């Protein structure tokens, strides 16, 4: 009694607020319910939500350029592409060391493939140049060994680079981080090397190249840095540094050897890296290629999405693709049109069947139901191939038409490997998805409604159209959503019977995923398809109302 007379929140018998008490009582129940659905939830998360999220991410992700050429893109940012001139020497210098490390890690061809989507020919450019990078360093090494043959020695280099005094651990950390980004691996372990700040200040390019070498040797190859001969890029770095460095005042380990080398360097022919790249392939001097690299050096790009709608991202902004490269808008339109055509043919064919199913006596309805479900028990490939047999020019239907004299033998109908064939085969395959929801809705409409309408004076047609049909609309809605969404993403049937004019956007996605390996574009196409389906679903909800969809 006291609970009901007091003011304030209702209290349970033990004095805790009733709401909290109730929540506690229900918590166990909720937990148990959650536990029951947990396997499915995890399954859906892992196999459905996560791949979709990954796909959406891939459609904008573009870290490969900045991961592979971090210094290059940084230096290139200051370059103005509109002048039409190739970038200055520092860009090529940065490119040399970036590319050298990438080539050692065998990552440069991936970048070539990526950039080739945007500019044809980049792929082979990267591959061929990657092979020639060593030559320049080898030449320098030969010249240096003539001065002092320890220049080819790993132990000597290790001593020189380690120097004396304070070690620059930060520089080493930056290079390890960079290598991790490039290879995409965690790369545990210790490098066991760090250059002294003194030598870093004196020979910045040499130490940078050596740090790359050290990190790679220790972390990727698992070798001891001091025992390995340095990369050719280190000699290129040394020669570049010696062009201006004042080594006379240096007093660290092996200072004498360094001073001797500096003296000799004046006699060794130094080739600027821009010249080197130009000799390797004159495309490196092409400003358009550099503009493309600059445009796609961002971590995230809209380029894939623009490609997916027949546009392209150029250094000067968004542009339409050349006429002969536009296919995706056309494919999207065709996919929509054919899915709609399939949905409508499914309604036209499925409605009467569902009506019969719902109104026949049980024994006959069961037989008919088996016929409806029969296609479900047959392999999709078998059914599709059967249509091929039926519809091809030397196929069953053409043979019958010729035999009947309706079609001349030399003029057989083309019914397969085009849109018609795809629509016929897919209508057949998706028909059960229309019939079943329609049937379940129609079963719920008592025959007394039709009788009532007739007793009120309606003709058969009026009774059907004004009374029966409106009540079967939820079934049509459910069936249409099912068929349309299945159709819009269908792959196998259009692939087999579609020819060139009957293929869907999904066939193109499959091509990019498994043949051209342009996953970003495939992902962007898939994301657009997903967005279109969601948009249509939303529109359907607004117009018809999703509450009006009954699946059973």
């Amino acid at each position: 009694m006291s609970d009901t007379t007091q003011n304030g929140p209702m209290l349970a018998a033990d004095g805790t607020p009733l709401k909290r008490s109730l929540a506690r009582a229900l918590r166990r129940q909720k937990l148990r319910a959650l536990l029951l659905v947990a396997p499915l939830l995890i399954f859906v998360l892992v196999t459905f939500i996560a791949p979709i999220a990954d796909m959406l991410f891939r459609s904008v992700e573009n870290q490969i350029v900045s991961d592979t050429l971090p210094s290059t893109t940084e230096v290139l940012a200051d370059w103005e592409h509109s002048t039409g001139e190739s970038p200055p020497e520092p860009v090529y210098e940065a490119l040399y060391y970036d590319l050298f490390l990438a080539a050692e890690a065998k990552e440069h061809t991936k970048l070539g493939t990526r950039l080739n989507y945007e500019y044809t020919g980049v792929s082979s450019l990267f591959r061929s140049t990657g092979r020639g990078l060593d030559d320049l360093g080898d030449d320098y090494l030969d010249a240096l060994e003539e001065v002092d043959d320890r220049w080819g020695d790993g132990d000597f280099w290790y001593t020189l680079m380690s120097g004396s005094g304070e070690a620059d651990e930060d520089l080493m950390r930056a290079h390890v981080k960079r290598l991790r980004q490039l290879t995409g691996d965690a790369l545990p372990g210790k490098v066991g090397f760090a250059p002294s700040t003194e030598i870093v200040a004196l020979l910045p390019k040499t130490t940078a190249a050596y740090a790359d070498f050290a990190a790679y040797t220790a972390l990727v190859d698992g070798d001891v840095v001091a025992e390995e001969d340095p990369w050719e890029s280190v000699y290129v770095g040394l020669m570049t540094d010696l062009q201006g460095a004042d080594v006379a005042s240096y007093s660290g380990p092996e200072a004498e050897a360094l001073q001797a080398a500096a003296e000799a360097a004046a006699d060794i022919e130094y080739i600027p890296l821009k010249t080197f790249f130009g000799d390797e392939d004159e495309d490196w001097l092409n400003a358009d290629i550099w503009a493309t690299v600059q445009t796609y050096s961002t971590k995230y790009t809209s380029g894939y999405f623009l490609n997916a709608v027949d546009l392209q991202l150029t250094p000067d902004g968004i542009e339409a693709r050349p006429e002969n490269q536009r296919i995706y808008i056309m494919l999207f339109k065709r996919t929509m049109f054919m899915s709609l055509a399939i949905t409508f043919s499914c309604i036209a064919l499925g409605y009467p069947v569902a009506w019969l199913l719902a109104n026949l006596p049980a024994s006959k309805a069961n037989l008919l139901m088996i016929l409806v479900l029969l296609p479900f028990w047959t392999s999709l490939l078998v059914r599709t191939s059967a249509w091929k047999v039926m519809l091809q020019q030397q196929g069953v239907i053409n043979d019958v038409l010729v035999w009947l004299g309706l079609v001349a033998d030399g003029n057989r109908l083309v019914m397969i490997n085009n849109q018609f064939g795809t629509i016929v085969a897919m209508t057949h395959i998706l028909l059960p998805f229309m019939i079943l929801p329609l049937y379940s809705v129609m079963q719920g409409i008592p025959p007394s409604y039709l009788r009532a309408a007739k007793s009120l004076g309606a003709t058969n047609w009026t009774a059907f159209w004004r009374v029966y049909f409106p009540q079967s609309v939820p079934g049509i809605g459910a069936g249409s959503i099912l068929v349309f969404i299945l159709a819009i993403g269908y792959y196998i049937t259009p692939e087999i019977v579609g020819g060139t004019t009957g293929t869907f956007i999904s066939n193109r996605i499959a091509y990019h995923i498994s043949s051209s390996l342009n996953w970003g574009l495939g992902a962007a196409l898939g994301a657009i398809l997903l967005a279109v389906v969601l948009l249509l679903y939303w529109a359907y909800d607004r117009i018809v109302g999703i509450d009006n969809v009954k699946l059973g």
Partner: protein
Amino acid sequence: MAETSDSGAFVAFERVQKSYDGETLVVKDLNLTMPKGEFLTMLGPSGSGKTTCLMMLAGFETATYGEIKLDGVQINNIPPHKRGIGMVFQNYALFPHMTVAENLSFPLEVRKIGKSDREAKVRRALDMVQMGDFAGRRPAQLSGGQQQRIALARALVFEPELVLMDEPLGALDKQLREHMQFEITRLAHDLGITTVYVTHDQTEALTMSDRVAVFNDGRIQQLAPPDRLYEEPENSFVAQFIGENNTLEGVIKSISGNTCEVQLDDGEVIAARPVNVSEVGQRTRVSIRPERVEMDKSRLQEGAHTLKAEVLEFVYMGDIFRTRLRVAGNSDFVMKTRNAPDQVRLKKGQQVEIGWLPDDCRALDA
């Protein structure tokens, strides 16, 4: 019972038979005529053919044999929508996707009646069932009783001369059902509509109808006004089906005019009124209504025969006492006595003498 031809008949079934499977007859030789304005109820257990008859009249089933006439015209081959018969269905069959007003307007629209006319008629029909405020509602938003009224209004809105009702009150609770029974009969009489009403509820049939046709096994067992049906059942099915009834089995010992003697199976001989027994030696069931059984000898005829009975159960029911007795070997013999101040309340196991007027004791077929 079998009034084959009547020139004034509004509805007539003539020798109508119906079979669904070609092997058994669901309706066997149905003959029935109804004058204009009559309220006739078809009453019977399920499967007795009453709904089939109604559906044949409405046009949803075709008669296998025989003629069905409406206002003198044979309608066997006229499709239902041209018969102009109003119908109320068991589950109301209100169109769920239309409002109440649209439901009512539907029969007027298909008859191509003008908009203003239609609205006036819909309003009048809704007012008639006191549902004027519900025109904009959907059927799902109405209670069962309200849906029932709308279904009724819809069947009447196009002013049919004949209205068929197929167990329209079956889904309502008892109180509402009784109220609607009254409403329906009032409307039917006020509007002068001829009504065929199908039910398996005998109280409904007795309280509402001008005449009741009791169906069993595809035949009309008796067609009579309610009082005659109850008091003068013509066979043992009707006696059993309508109201509560006691039966005692035996053999006819003698018949003379309006009385006969029946020897019960335990040897007792009682007087009864012969109804459909004709010869001595025939087996018979004697039927006595529980409320006509008397304990008070002063209310029986001089020298009337009495039987010994043992009280098995005494139930106090407020207005009456219901006593179950064992009489002549029958332990389901029921006696109903009025709860009057001087009425004795019997005890279980008590021995009493009971009797009845010979006219209340009808010897029927076995």
